[in-house]
């Protein structure tokens, strides 16, 4: 049998694919040709569905018969800012039911911003014999009863991570449901739990799991007990402390410091709820090896904060409150040359007057001192175009830049001009920019810059910006890789949206709230674009009770091959051909 030269050896395609695990690469492979599509789908082990309503579980199951790991996201990102009303959707129930019957060998489920019931957790616990990893990130709807079922039944569980989820604490004893024979735990994150857990159960669990590398406690775990835990788990790589304050006692302190010294593998610290500064030096033994430090809940001030940060020359990631101030950021810039990610959160976001001295200068110093900086989230109260231009010049490899000037429409405080030029410099210089959040006073001009230069931009967040539809048009027509666009309180209306309707099918989703998109335009869009779900979210009542030209409260458009969903609450309407005729 003659074979074309340079032809791919298909008999090894499956083997080659076993080395390709990245989702984007797998998707590219599946689109090459028919035979590759077939081979790829039979050996895909892991799937990521960025919007649980974009596809139905049955479709996934039919296409990928051998999945071992499923990751789903539910609510849009703006749900984090309370912009998505309760009950909107994102219930994982139908997915879990379908997965339970289709994949008895499923090992991993990762969910973000989804509503998970105890019932679903019980189904997970009982259906998958080799279940290993459960991650519930920013989820809600379940209680410790559901967790108890998981603990009791998942004999091979390696990871249980509840980051940022809202959990109803019904029983303190759920941790005790892990049987004594259970020793496989490698990762446990219960930092979001409000109520205390049984410490003795926790201690026993930590003691009998030799592979435990990640342990993130909740604030209810007292500081004087931390040393015991650390001593029974010196192999920890990531630690989230509980409350970090207690009456200062020398023996407690030395025990704690000794325990930290024993943790030679520790690379990441977080927690630090309610810090008593006197105990901070206990962590100094691990600081030189620390790569990640998360102090976003830590009320440490000035000198203590600077001293701590200065002990960590290997730091790559720092999350901190604005108590660090400009002076602390200068120290950071001088000390942590490997810094790649910085997040500065506001300690008093609702205060009218600034409570700390954190300005644009802090971020500029970090951009000057840390050449590897590529991810920034910065809450502040003032900014200038000059500062942004400097930051852009200093960090050409920036991939994620999120600036949150707390007061909406705040101009450059020195020139009183809009911040268009500053953000323009960011998108022009940072050619690899994938994520951008805007704030401050901005005109259509900034969107023209974004559309022209931000060719790799995947996610854009906009609030209180722009003058007209041209702004939105620039973004939709210019940003080729745009995947998620979220907009609030901007004067964008029908025209740009309708003119760029086709673009919406190339994106995951578009959120617009408190803008000027009319009901009529929504109907038109929904009717004409069968592969989009156009959801109008309006708590004022049915949109057809108002004139067609009336703007809708909130609009969520996402591409889908699953058709309109049927689990919508009373304040959500899908615009599609059927509903249009319904409205008439």
């Amino acid at each position, binding site marked *: *049998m003659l074979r*074309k030269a340079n*032809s*791919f*050896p298909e008999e090894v395609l499956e*083997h*080659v694919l*076993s*080395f390709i695990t990245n989702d984007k*690469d797998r998707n*590219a*492979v599946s*689109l090459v*040709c028919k035979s*590759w*599509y077939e081979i790829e789908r039979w050996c895909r082990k892991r799937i990521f569905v960025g919007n649980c309503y974009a596809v139905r579980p*049955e*479709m996934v199951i039919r*296409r990928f018969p051998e999945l071992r790991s499923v990751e789903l996201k539910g609510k849009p990102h703006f749900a*984090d*800012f309370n912009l998505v009303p309760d009950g909107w959707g994102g219930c994982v129930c139908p997915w879990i*039911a*379908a997965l339970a019957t289709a994949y008895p060998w499923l090992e991993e489920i990762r969910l973000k911003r989804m509503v998970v019931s105890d019932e679903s957790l019980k189904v997970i616990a009982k259906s998958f014999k080799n279940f290993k990893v459960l991650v519930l990130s920013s989820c809600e709807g379940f209680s410790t009863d559901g967790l108890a079922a998981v603990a009791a039944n998942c004999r091979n569980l390696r990871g249980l991570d509840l980051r*940022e989820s809202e959990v109803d604490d019904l029983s303190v004893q759920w941790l005790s449901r892990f049987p004594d024979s259970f020793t496989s735990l490698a990762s446990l994150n219960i930092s979001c739990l409000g109520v205390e857990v049984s410490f003795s159960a926790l201690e026993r669990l930590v003691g009998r799991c030799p592979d435990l590398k990640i342990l993130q406690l909740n604030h209810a775990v007292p500081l004087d007990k931390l040393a015991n835990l650390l001593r029974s788990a010196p192999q920890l790589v990531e630690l989230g402390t509980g409350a970090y304050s207690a009456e200062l006692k020398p023996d407690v302190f030395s025990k704690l410091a000794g325990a930290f010294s024993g943790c030679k593998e520790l690379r990441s610290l977080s927690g630090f709820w*309610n810090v008593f500064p006197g105990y901070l030096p206990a962590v100094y033994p691990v600081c030189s090896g620390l790569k990640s430090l998360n102090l*976003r*809940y830590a*009320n440490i001030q000035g000198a203590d904060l600077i001293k701590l940060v200065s002990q960590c020359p290997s730091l790559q990631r720092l999350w901190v409150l604005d*108590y660090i101030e400009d002076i602390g950021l200068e120290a950071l810039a001088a000390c942590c040359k490997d810094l790649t990610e910085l997040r500065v959160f506001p300690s*008093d*976001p*609702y*205060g009218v*007057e600034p*409570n*700390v001295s954190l300005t644009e200068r802090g971020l500029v110093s970090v951009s000057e001192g840390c050449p590897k900086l590529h991810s920034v989230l910065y809450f502040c109260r003032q900014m200038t175009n000059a500062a942004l231009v400097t930051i852009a010049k200093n960090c050409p490899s920036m991939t994620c830049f999120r600036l*949150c000037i*707390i007061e909406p429409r705040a101009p450059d405080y020195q020139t009183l001009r809009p911040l268009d030029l500053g953000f323009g410099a960011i998108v022009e210089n940072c050619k690899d920019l994938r994520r951008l959040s805007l704030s401050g006073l901005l005109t259509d001009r900034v969107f023209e810059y974004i559309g022209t230069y931000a060719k790799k931009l995947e996610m854009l967040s906009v609030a209180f910006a722009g003058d*007209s539809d*041209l702004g939105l048009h620039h973004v939709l*027509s210019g940003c080729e890789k745009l995947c998620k666009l979220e907009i609030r309180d901007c*004067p964008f209306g029908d*025209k740009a949206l*309708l*003119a760029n*309707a086709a673009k919406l099918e190339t994106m995951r989703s578009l959120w617009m709230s*408190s803008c*000027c998109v*009319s009901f*009529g*335009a929504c109907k038109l869009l929904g009717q*004409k674009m*069968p592969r989009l779900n156009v959801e109008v979210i309006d708590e004022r009542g049915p949109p057809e009770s108002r004139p067609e*030209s009336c*703007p809708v*409260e909130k609009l969520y458009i996402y591409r889908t*091959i699953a*058709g309109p969903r049927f689990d919508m609450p009373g304040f959500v309407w899908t615009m599609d051909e059927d509903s249009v005729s*319904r409205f*008439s």
Partner: protein
Amino acid sequence: MRDCLKGSNPVAIHFQMMRSYTWIQTTDGAVQQVEQEVAMFCPLICQEVIQKGMGSSKNYAIFLPQRVGTSMFSLILDYCRFHQVPGRSNKERKSFDEKFVRMDTKRLCELTSAAESLQLKPLVDLTSRALARIIEGKTPEEIREIFHLPDDLTEEEKLEPLKNTTDDPRIRLLNRLYVKKRKELKEREKLKNVEAEEEHVDDRSVDDLVSFINGGDGDSKGMKTSKNRKKHQKRKDRQKCAPEMHKKESNVFSLLCHNAKHDHELQSSLRETLKLQDAADVIFSPTVEFEDVDIDSEIDPALKEEIDREVEDFARILNSDWPERMQELLSLGQERRPAQLSINGNGNLKRYGSIIIPRTLIHQSLHDHHAPRRLLK
């Protein structure tokens, strides 16, 4: 063999004659001798020697598989020659492998194929990883070009093929039922549409913009515009009558769903088939407005540029009377704008006006009793 021994040291000759050789015939017909320990590194050759006693002499040379060409075999021998030596460190082996696999894609493919047919797993792994690295980060088009693969997936398939949904007779029956019900509903609506007054609603700007972009062809544009207007007006009329249509249609559907309730797959497959049918309608119906928008990427760049420019012009023209419209729209939305920050009794922030602060920060700042409220510097 005798030729290459001419004039050599007799002691060396003696040692050489002590070594074993395996006779191999490559695909070009040539027969060669390979040091036994090197050749036996290939499981297939090993199998032939041990199980079938082949390779001991020229007449019993082992035939290599079709996919192992002469130059490929030579490469593979180099690999085997290096790795069969026991004393080498992991670092050495790794370094050799990295250099070894540096070759053009064509040779890499041939080598992978050859290694696979000789069952030489370590080399298959090495070359497969190298191929994986070539594939990573590329688009489907690029991959097709590199490996000369056909572009045989249809547009529909590229989205998500929904195969075999109509094979199940139950689904086909439900399909027919649903189509029938839909037709009945449409008939009923038409009957209710007794007064079809042509109302003159001024939504021309939206329609014009839309059809202008989709057109570019003078005749169809005119037709489309009037079709748009007609369709739009009809909707307006329907809006006046039969508000209970909504309930009726959903009842029918829920009835269908109820029948299929016990079979989730059935239910969803039904919807899928309907989607396919609807999609088919969209694709094949020549009068659907947004159809052209899908082939945007295939419009030649000059025309695209022209269209872009015209969109901008239009936007500018419309913008001239936009401020008034915007005022109107904003004032309509204004009364419902949520008030500035309000915290209810439980400390839960449900709505807030002007700041964009995440939920988790709210919890933190509310629970944080120890943080000083004001830090004066």
